[in-house]
């Protein structure tokens, strides 16, 4: 189930990314850049979620089916999944705030591009990394039930 959902998510996000890049505006608009960031985060997290138990260390093969990875692959999968999901959620919030700035506060594109967009991308990318990277240093993504 996780594999099917992840695959559909990867394909959909890839098509959306391709559509944005092939569009007339490309990445020149703030909205396209925000959706592009959302899609990239979703592709990363969904792709590694699709791999599911294949990245789990071989030693767990008796408990987890298809475990063929190592501690490093498991850690990589864990950090990318949680970072991707949190980044996607943060980008979703930012898209809402972007709409709010346009509709309620009547902000122009120039103002959003110069003042707000930097914060949108900065918080969306740096917040998950600051939160989750320290856990990686103690191998917190391997066998704890909190993540994988």
């Amino acid at each position, binding site marked *: 189930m996780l594999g099917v959902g992840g695959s559909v998510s990867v394909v959909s996000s890839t098509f959306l990314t391709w559509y944005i890049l092939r569009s007339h505006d490309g990445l020149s608009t703030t909205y396209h850049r925000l959706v592009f960031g959302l899609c990239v985060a979703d592709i990363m997290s969904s792709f590694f979620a699709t791999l599911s138990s294949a990245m789990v260390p071989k030693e767990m093969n008796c408990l987890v089916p298809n475990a063929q990875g190592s501690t490093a692959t498991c850690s990589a999968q864990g950090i990318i999944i949680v970072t991707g999901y949190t980044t996607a959620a943060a980008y979703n919030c930012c898209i809402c705030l972007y709409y709010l700035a346009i509709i309620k506060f009547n902000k122009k594109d120039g103002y959003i591009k110069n003042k707000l967009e930097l914060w949108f991308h900065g918080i969306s990318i740096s917040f998950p990394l600051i939160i989750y990277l320290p*856990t990686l240093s103690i*191998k917190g993504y391997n066998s*704890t039930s909190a993540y994988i």
Partner: protein
Amino acid sequence: MIHRIVSDTKVEIYPTALIYLADEVMGGGGPILVLVPALVGLLSMLVVTPTAIVCTMLLMYKAVSKIEKKMLNYGANLLQLKILHRNNLDNPESKSDTCSVNDQGIINRIKIVCSWMIPGLCRDQPPSRANRVQSHKRAVVYMALGCDLVWALV
């Protein structure tokens, strides 16, 4: 839990896995570094994001409703009717169309009501600038709502 499993007979069946588990869970250290990010991550995913989305949606909906009410007070509908009437006077042959206001008869009235209910049917209706503005903002709100519903579904 690990000690209980180790003391069972399962240790003979899966010794490698249990030793690995015990090493990783018990010997990893730094539970704060695991628990705090997990809690912060869960809170941000399950509480902060939905709250932010709902709040922004409500604010946007209130703003759009306010704009629409203001446009009604300005008489956007009257403007639209005036333009429609002028269009009918300019093109008398289009009087028999479904969008004509001056048509008589029950069937024609029903047609008019249906065409007003389904905007796509009323193709001869000239666009009114005021209504286009309000529908554009409402469409943006609906688009944002759609994005957020998709995310919530995922």
